[in-house]
C-alpha cells in the first residue's frame, strides 16, 4: 500500500509535451492589491488597477489548483514575460500552459513552459515562457 504521507508527484520523466493545462479562475480584488502593496511597498496603483506583477505571481499558485500531482520543481531558473493588457479589480483570471521543451541534465531536467493568463473575456492579459529545473524520478 502506498504511504499516504507521500504525495504523488510528477517528475521530469512524467512531463508530457504540448498538453494544454487550464486552471480554475481567481477574481482579483482590492485585497490582493493591498496585500501586495504592503508586502512590496511598490508604487501605489491607480484606483481599480491591479499591479501588473500580481497576475504573474498568482499564475504559479493557480497551477496548484489543477487536480493533478505537483511537479517536483528543484529551482525556478528564469522566465520571459510580456504584460499585454492591464487587469482591473473584479477581473477573473486563469492560466493556460503547456510544456514546449524538455532537456535532460545530469541532475534533473530542464522544462520550458509556455503560459498565458486570460481574463473572463478570454483576452490574453499576460504571457511568456518559464524555465524550471525538475527532479528526475528517484530509483525505485
Amino acid at each position, binding site marked *: 500500500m502506498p504511504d499516504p504521507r507521500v504525495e504523488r508527484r510528477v517528475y521530469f520523466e512524467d512531463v508530457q509535451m504540448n498538453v494544454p493545462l487550464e486552471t480554475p479562475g*481567481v477574481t482579483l480584488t482590492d485585497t*490582493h492589491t493591498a*496585500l*501586495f502593496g504592503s*508586502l*512590496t*511597498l*511598490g*508604487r501605489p496603483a491607480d484606483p481599480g488597477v491591479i499591479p*501588473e*506583477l500580481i497576475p*504573474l*505571481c*498568482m499564475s*504559479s*499558485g*493557480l497551477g*496548484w*489548483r489543477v487536480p493533478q500531482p*505537483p511537479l517536483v*520543481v*528543484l*529551482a*525556478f*531558473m*528564469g*522566465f*520571459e*514575460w*510580456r*504584460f499585454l493588457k*492591464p487587469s482591473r479589480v473584479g477581473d477573473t483570471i486563469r492560466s493556460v500552459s503547456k510544456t514546449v521543451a524538455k532537456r535532460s541534465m545530469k541532475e534533473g531536467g530542464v522544462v520550458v513552459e509556455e503560459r498565458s493568463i486570460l481574463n473572463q473575456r478570454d483576452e490574453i492579459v499576460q504571457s*511568456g515562457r518559464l524555465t524550471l529545473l525538475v527532479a528526475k524520478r528517484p530509483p525505485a
Partner: protein
Amino acid sequence: MSGEPTVYFEDVKVGDEYTSPGRTVTEADIVIFAGLSGDYNVLHTDAEHMKASLFGERIAHGLLGLSIQQGLLDRVVPGQAVGPLASVKWKFKGPIKIGDTIHVLARVAAKKDGEQPAAGVVTVERRVVNQRGEVVQEGETDHVVARRPA
C-alpha cells in the same frame, strides 16, 4: 498626486544608474507571499523537507524576490521614469534565504520608440544583490514612458 515632478521619456538618459535601499527578507514575507499567490511549493513552506534539499532550508519564491526588488527600485526612481512594465527577461541565479538582505542595482540600458507615438520604451538592466555581494537575480525590464507633450 504625489507632488513629484513628472519625468518624461526625454528626461531619461541611457546610463542613468540607481541603487535601492536594502531589505531583509523574512519568514513572514514568504508566508504572506505563499498566501497571496497560492504557491505553497515545499521549496518555500516545508522546513523539514528542505533540510535534505540542495538549499538546506526554505527559500523565498523567485517571484517574491522579483516583487520585492520592484518595490525597492520604485523607492529610488523618480516619477514615472520607470513606468508600467511592458516585459521582463529574468534569471534566478541563486536562492534568497530567510534573513538575507537584498538590494537592487539598476541601469538604463536603452531607449527606443514605442508602438504609440506618445510614448517611448525604456530598457532597464537590474541586478539583485545579497549581503555577500552575490547576484541572486538579474534581468532586464522594458517600460512604457510618456513623451513630453508638445
